[in-house]
């Protein structure tokens, strides 16, 4: 469905001169520096897969998505989606893909949702029967009816997101690109959108490429993740494998009922202490969460306790910092051969 081979993108960042004469000179200016946004990335996605395309801000996620959707022209390497080369066959590719950017809407700001949809029906030449069927199905799953006649600019973030996702699927695309689809949404809205994506994927065999910072999104939706950092691909495989392989240190925060003088616990390291508030860092391999909490409860009175799992940002940091060890670990686990950056299983 999607084939990406040694894909690279280099941006030219121009120096801008200020003022009238400066802006005139900018026309002829060739002064720039090069920024490598994506560096020889290769992967492939099969029909019906949901993949999480992850990485910290500025890693090159969006740039990759923009090359897959035909917005940007790659500097080198090749990419095909559905057999089309997105930047050369932009319009053909556009007919077969749906795109949602969480940061901004693809709908018309001053039109009601319904009219935006009707405009899309004209643009994509969607047959009336298909259009009606899709609107009905999406309404049932996403509850569009509540705000179908409301101008897009008046929608809440959650409503807008639902409208945008439905809009991207009206023309029955084969591939759906979702860039941060749950950003800024509350728990209920997030759950609803995840469920919808799952359902669409299962029923219509829509391939989904998802970029997100939300680990929950990934865990609920994606079996497979691709990690990218500093423009390079650093992991491609099952989410479970990634979790197992990475350092899984966790942080336990405790509010004690009173201030104790000696709060040390074997196998856990105190990393923060302010009066009765203490944080421990521990590795589940050395001590299980349950044992640690048990040890604490035995000796102290507590008010509140919570465990933090490492979030994606941290996982990725680990991957990047321990690149060598990770490569070794992965090679042992026979998941991926990082030296060729090719998936072998």
């Amino acid at each position, binding site marked *: 469905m999607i084939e990406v081979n040694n894909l690279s993108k280099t941006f030219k960042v*121009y120096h801008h001169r200020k003022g009238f004469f400066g802006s005139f000179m*900018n026309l002829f200016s060739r002064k720039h520096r090069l920024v490598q946004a994506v560096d020889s990335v290769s992967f492939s996605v099969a029909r019906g897969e949901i993949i999480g395309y992850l990485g910290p801000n500025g890693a090159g996620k969006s*740039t990759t998505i923009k090359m897959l959707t035909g917005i940007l022209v790659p500097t080198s390497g090749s990419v095909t989606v559905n057999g089309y080369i997105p930047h050369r066959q932009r319009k053909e590719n556009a007919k077969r893909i749906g795109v949602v*950017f969480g940061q901004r809407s*693809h709908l018309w700001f001053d039109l009601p949702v319904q009219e935006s949809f009707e*405009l899309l029906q004209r*643009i994509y030449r969607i047959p009336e029967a298909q259009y009606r069927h899709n609107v009905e199905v999406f309404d049932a799953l996403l509850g569009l009816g509540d705000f179908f006649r409301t101008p897009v600019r008046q929608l809440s973030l959650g409503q807008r997101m639902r409208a945008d996702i439905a809009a991207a699927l009206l023309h029955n695309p084969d591939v759906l690109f979702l860039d941060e689809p749950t950003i800024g949404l509350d728990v209920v809205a997030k759950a609803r959108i995840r469920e919808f994506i799952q359902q669409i994927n299962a029923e219509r065999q829509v391939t989904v490429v998802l970029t997100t910072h939300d680990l929950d999104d990934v865990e609920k939706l994606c079996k497979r993740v691709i990690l990218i950092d500093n423009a390079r691909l650093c992991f491609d495989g099952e989410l479970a494998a990634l979790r197992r392989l990475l350092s899984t240190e966790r942080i336990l925060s405790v509010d004690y009922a009173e201030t104790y003088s000696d709060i040390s616990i074997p196998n856990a390291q105190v990393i923060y202490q302010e009066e009765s508030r203490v944080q421990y860092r521990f590795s589940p391999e050395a001590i299980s969460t349950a044992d640690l909490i048990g040890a604490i409860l035995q000796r102290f009175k507590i008010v509140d306790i919570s465990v933090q799992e490492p979030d994606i940002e941290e996982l990725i940091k680990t991957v990047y910092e321990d690149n060598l060890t990770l490569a070794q670990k992965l090679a042992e686990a026979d998941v991926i051969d990082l030296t060729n950056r090719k998936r072998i299983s």
Partner: protein
Amino acid sequence: MHHLSLYLHFVKLRIRSQMAYRLSFVLDLFAQASISVIDFFMIALLFNRFKELAGWSLWEVGFLYGMIGICFAVAEMMGRGFDVFQRNVVRGEFDTMLVRPLGTFYQVFAHEFLLRRLGRIAQALAVLLIANSQLDISWSLGKVGFLLVSLVSGTCFFIGLFVIGATSCFWTVQSIEIINIFTNGGVFMGSYPFSIYRWWFRHFFTFIIPLACVNYFPSLFLLEKVASSGVPPLGVQLAPYAGFLFLGVTMLFWRWGVLRYQSTGH
């Protein structure tokens, strides 16, 4: 056919949203028309003192003024999408256009329609009609056709200028104000007979930026001034096509620019 009906649909939606505040719209129309009435009044004052300019009477200059005024106002009304394209790029709206199965030029063109320019168009048309009534032009079918082609071509010329300005956004993001020298400045320069300008200036605005082809050369023919101007008659006959050619070249420039689009943020 699909593109045309879709374009009309876009225009309909645009007009409807601009008409949402009817009173403000009507006031705007009047404001636009009256500002440009004052505009022409300045020229009339000038002629009150000098009677003629390089052999052109007030109403002959009014004819020039009306022609270029119509072309520019129609171009602003229809080519608005290119005029405000910088905003699209900054807001990331151009990314949206790139994921739609339609040409980018078409989408930007269909994106905006500034109905309130009707006020300007009405004022320029009025000046043209009054000038015509004062000038005693011997109209023939051929001349009417020549005028219409010239007006359409002149409109294309100004849209072409907007396209150049829009294309430059692919590199600078901040639009280049410089293009206004040719648009607003062009209307001002074109309101006077080109024979008053220097040699290099005339040639630059004939062969590089064909501003003189919008109204000056066509007016020479329509007002029967070709012989006295010293401009080759064949050149005058070909002038009304320069705008089409110019727009065509800027469309190629656009296509070349789109491939170099770098998108923004995220």
